[in-house]
C-alpha cells in the first residue's frame, strides 16, 4: 500500500547531541583506507585552516542515518524496512564536521512518491552544532520495493 502523502513535510524532534570523537574519525578514515593527515593530525588540520581534525565527507551519514530511524520506525508512516534499499545520498556542507562537535539532527520527510508499486521516500536531515549553527544537510532517498504480488 502506498505511503500516506500527508506525511510530506512532517518534521521530527531534534536528536540528542552526538559528540564527534577524534578516535572515531580516525577509525572511519582507516576503514576507508584514507591516510590524509587532516583526519588524524591536529597540526595538519590547522595548516589548512581548521580548528581541529575534520571528518571525511561521508562520515556524518552514520549520525544522520541513525536519526532517520525516527522516520523509518514511525509506526504511523508504516514503512516496510525489510524492502528498503538506499537509492541516493547527498550532502551539502556549510562547514566540515570536526572532532569535538556536538551535533543534533532534525529529520523531516521531504517527498513521498509511488512509482511502479515502489515507495520512494526522501528524508532531509539538518545537522547543527552546539551553538545552533548549521553544519550540513543530508538528503537520503530510500526506496521500498513493491511487495511480491502487490
Amino acid at each position, binding site marked *: 500500500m502506498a505511503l500516506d502523502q500527508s506525511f510530506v513535510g512532517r518534521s521530527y524532534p531534534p536528536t540528542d547531541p552526538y559528540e564527534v570523537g577524534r578516535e572515531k574519525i580516525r577509525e572511519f578514515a582507516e576503514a576507508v*583506507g584514507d591516510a590524509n593527515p*587532516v583526519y588524524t593530525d591536529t597540526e595538519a588540520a590547522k595548516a589548512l*585552516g581548521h580548528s581541529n581534525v575534520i571528518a*571525511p565527507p*561521508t562520515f556524518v551519514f552514520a549520525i544522520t542515518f541513525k536519526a532517520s530511524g525516527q522516520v523509518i520506525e514511525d509506526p504511523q508512516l508504516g514503512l516496510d524496512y525489510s524492502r528498503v534499499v538506499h537509492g*541516493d545520498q*547527498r550532502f551539502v556542507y556549510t*562547514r*566540515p564536521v570536526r572532532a569535538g562537535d556536538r551535533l543534533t539532527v532534525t529529520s523531516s520527510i521531504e517527498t513521498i512518491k509511488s512509482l511502479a508499486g515502489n515507495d520512494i521516500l526522501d528524508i532531509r536531515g539538518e545537522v547543527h552544532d552546539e551553538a545552533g549553527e548549521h553544519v550540513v544537510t543530508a538528503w537520503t532517498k530510500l526506496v521500498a520495493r513493491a511487495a511480491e504480488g502487490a
Partner: protein
Amino acid sequence: MTAKISYDDVEVGTELPAQSFPVTRATLVRYAGASGDFNPIHWNEKFAVEVGLPDVIAHGMFTMAEAIRVVTDWAGDPGAVVEYGVRFTRPVVVPNDDKGAVIEVAAKVGAKLDDGRVRVDLVATSEGQKVLGMSRAVVQLA
C-alpha cells in the same frame, strides 16, 4: 579551508587523477564497525543469497566514501568539498576470495561555478559496470 588547486588552473574537462580502490570482506567488516552499519548483506554470504543478492555486497556508503577520495586527494583539503551526492545504481559484489573486488574511480571538472567553485563529475565502476550514477561534488578551490 585551503584547497591545493586554484580555480584559475582548471577548465571544464580537466581530469583528476583516477584511482582504484580494492575491497575485500575484511574491508567490509572494518567499515561496518566504523560506520555502525552491520546489515548482514555486507558480511554474511548465506544471508545475502537468501535475500536475492548474488553474494555479499559492499555498503553503498563505502563506495561513496572511496569515490570522493579522488576529489579530496586532488583538492588537498577534504573540507573543500561543499556538496557531494550520488545515486546507488548497482551494488559492488565482493567475493570471498583473495582478490575481492575493485572500485575504479575517474573524475573530471564538469562545470566552473561562481565564487571559485567547480562541479566535479565522478564515474565509479566495478567489473566494468557503473556502480554510482549522478555522482557529483562541488569543490571550493583556491
